[in-house]
């Protein structure tokens, strides 16, 4: 349930590469417990914004804070989990080892049962001891989803989560997102799936790096916003 306490605050956040502006000055506030759908056509700045908030990119101008700490700082990193579009995994660790490693890096002492439960939720129980480096795109994405969930967070940033997932995988992920939302986590999902906005509390539409819509929206609204 959304509260008025701001968790993610972007103030005039700007990103430019030389003379190419990837994100025009963008101001946005996401309170605790809110699920936001971030929509826009290719190159509209969705991924850039998420990567700036995660601390993977550096702002050209403006400011982004996560749980009151500037993006990229240790406190912000502890409060935020980022599920990227492209799974980035180690070549030499199995799914279970990946989870144990990332959990340890966040101070989580996860038991074998807890890891098994998480692995089962992303439908990877039969491959838990295999190397994800040899997985298909969809299975790698499921591993990446598990990695985003194995550590505590107040804010989850998700970039194009449904790419490569089969129908059951997509349903499972939607169920997980709904559950996290019900538990009070703030979630920002950048997606091209117009149907997702029906689940979100709010839809933010970007066009050429600028916010063109911020509020509730229907699937039809999204199609109009993205296509015009």
């Amino acid at each position, binding site marked *: 349930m959304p509260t008025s306490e701001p968790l993610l605050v972007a103030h005039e956040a700007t990103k430019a590469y030389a*003379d190419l502006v990837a994100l025009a000055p963008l101001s946005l506030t996401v309170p605790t417990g809110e699920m936001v759908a971030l929509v826009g056509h290719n190159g509209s700045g969705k991924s850039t914004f998420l990567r700036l908030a995660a601390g993977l990119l550096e702002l050209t101008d403006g400011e982004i804070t996560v749980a009151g700490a500037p993006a990229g700082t240790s406190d912000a990193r502890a409060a935020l989990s980022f599920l990227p579009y492209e799974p980035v*995994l180690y070549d*030499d660790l199995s799914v279970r080892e990946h989870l144990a490693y990332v959990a340890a*890096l*966040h*101070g989580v002492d996860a038991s074998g049962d*807890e890891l098994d439960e998480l692995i089962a939720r992303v439908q990877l129980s039969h491959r838990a001891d295999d190397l994800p480096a040899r997985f298909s795109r969809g299975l790698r994405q499921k591993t990446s989803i598990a*990695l985003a969930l194995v550590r505590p967070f107040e804010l989850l940033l998700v970039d194009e989560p449904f790419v490569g997932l089969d129908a059951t995988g997509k349903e499972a992920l939607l169920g997980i997102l709904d559950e996290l939302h019900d538990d009070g986590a703030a979630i920002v999902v950048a997606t091209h799936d117009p149907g997702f906005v029906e689940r979100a509390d709010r839809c933010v539409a970007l066009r050429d790096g600028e916010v063109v819509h911020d509020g509730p929206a229907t699937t039809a609204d999204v199609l109009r916003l993205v296509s015009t």
Partner: protein
Amino acid sequence: MLAADPDADLEGALVDWRQFRRRKRVADIHWIDAFYQAYLTGILGLVAVAVASSAVGDDVATASQVREVLADGPAWLGGLAAFALALGLRSGSRGGPLALERAEVRHVLLAPVDRMSALLAPALRQLRFLGFVGLIVGGVAGDLASKRLPGATLAWIATGSLVGITGVGLSVGAALVAGGLRLPRWAGSLVGLLLIAGAVAHGVGLVDVSVTSVFGDLVLWPLRFSLAGLAPVALALVLVVAGLALLGRASLEAAERRSTLVGQLRFAATLQDLRTVIVLRRQLAMELPRIRPWVRLRVRGTGRWPVFVRGLRGLLRWPAARVARLGLLGVVAGVALRGAWTGTTPLVLLAGVAMFIAGLDAVEPLAQEVDHPSRRDASPMPAAAIHLLHLPVGLLTMLLAAGVGGAVAAGPGPGRLPADLAALLVVPLAAGGLGGALVSVLAGPVTMSEGWSLAPPEAQGMRLAVRTAWPPAVAVIGAAPVVMARAAVADGHTALAGAQPLVVGALVLLALISGWVRVRDDIAAWWKAQMALAQPNRDRTNDADV
């Protein structure tokens, strides 16, 4: 949701997991593989030492030669330190010197682990490895120097090792400091360039002192001990300590970009895939085409010459860094021509290689056609014809770069070339650089094609050597007329008369290469058909195009 222990030792967990991964990696290495790698390294090391030893020779230097080394050595040897520092500054301003695994950037550097602790281990590992390489290379160089110069062998070896480690410390330390201070890329390149320019200016006598000459004092310790030689050692130490202290401030954005590209770059270099190396290097340096061209062409649509116009549009969107690099390569070629004109013949190689590198930029539109063959092949025009139509823009670009070289060669100062000779040399320089680049881009990396798979290893090795050396050799042929001109003047003829035959030769070579560009696809198809006929029993179900 899983809960974190607020008192958990995150840095300790990172150390434990890194040890776990190292043990796992070591367990996966078969002893035969490890032995083979050590064997290869040993053999290659011995060959390198033998080649270097024969190049240096063992004639003891005369007293006057030793005096010359003591007088001029510090300036030129300081150039090595300038180069090491420039390399480090350039690397650091582009996110180096560390190249972490991409997963390490995503999972470790995005975790609330102290970044200084996370980066210290890989930084120390890199320093340890490079320091060891510097120690060995420096020691061997010191031993070789002791064969020709006076002084105890042990002193030369010890000094050489110290020099090697100091050079590594200067380079890696400068990179760490530049990365920690987030030095802008242009600033890193500029400071590096100034250091090298200062050392060269000192070397040729334009100035009396350069900041890097104290490194030369260190190198020459066995001949003349000087306390000034301690300065580069101290500077290297300070840079390394300061760089390590600044590790936590390194840019995550640069680290991730670097982690993505460096692995691919190394792989491409291993395969000798020069084109891929160039493309990845540009991505690493964020060398992006300009959004607004330098000059907007007043051509509607594609115009009458679509391929030419496409090439010209690409050229007009070159980023400033690429324009500057082309100019700089022209300057290098010009300076090298002056050196070759005054008697240092090997500098022709430098002029040729500079033009070859410029050529690789000049043939960019054509290289993109090769990178994306499906787009090119969708055109009704034969691929070879499209390639050929890209040549005018390449030649135009190379004439500009070679023009800079000609102007520098004929400019005032010692060793200047006659203006008419410098003007004449512009043409073969451009032709050679373009020809070499064309061969490199169109031939691509050497692969084990059907026709060569059954050839003996000696023939394979010879083919590999020729294929690797031929493209830069074409460019060197374009720079060689300056040597002919020098010889003609020595024989009492005019410089132009001496250079002309090889100028014509370079132009004929470019014409032949252009012809090869046009017919190479036909030759390849014919060769493939011949190979198919030679192996009649082979399953040819996949050879629909034969």
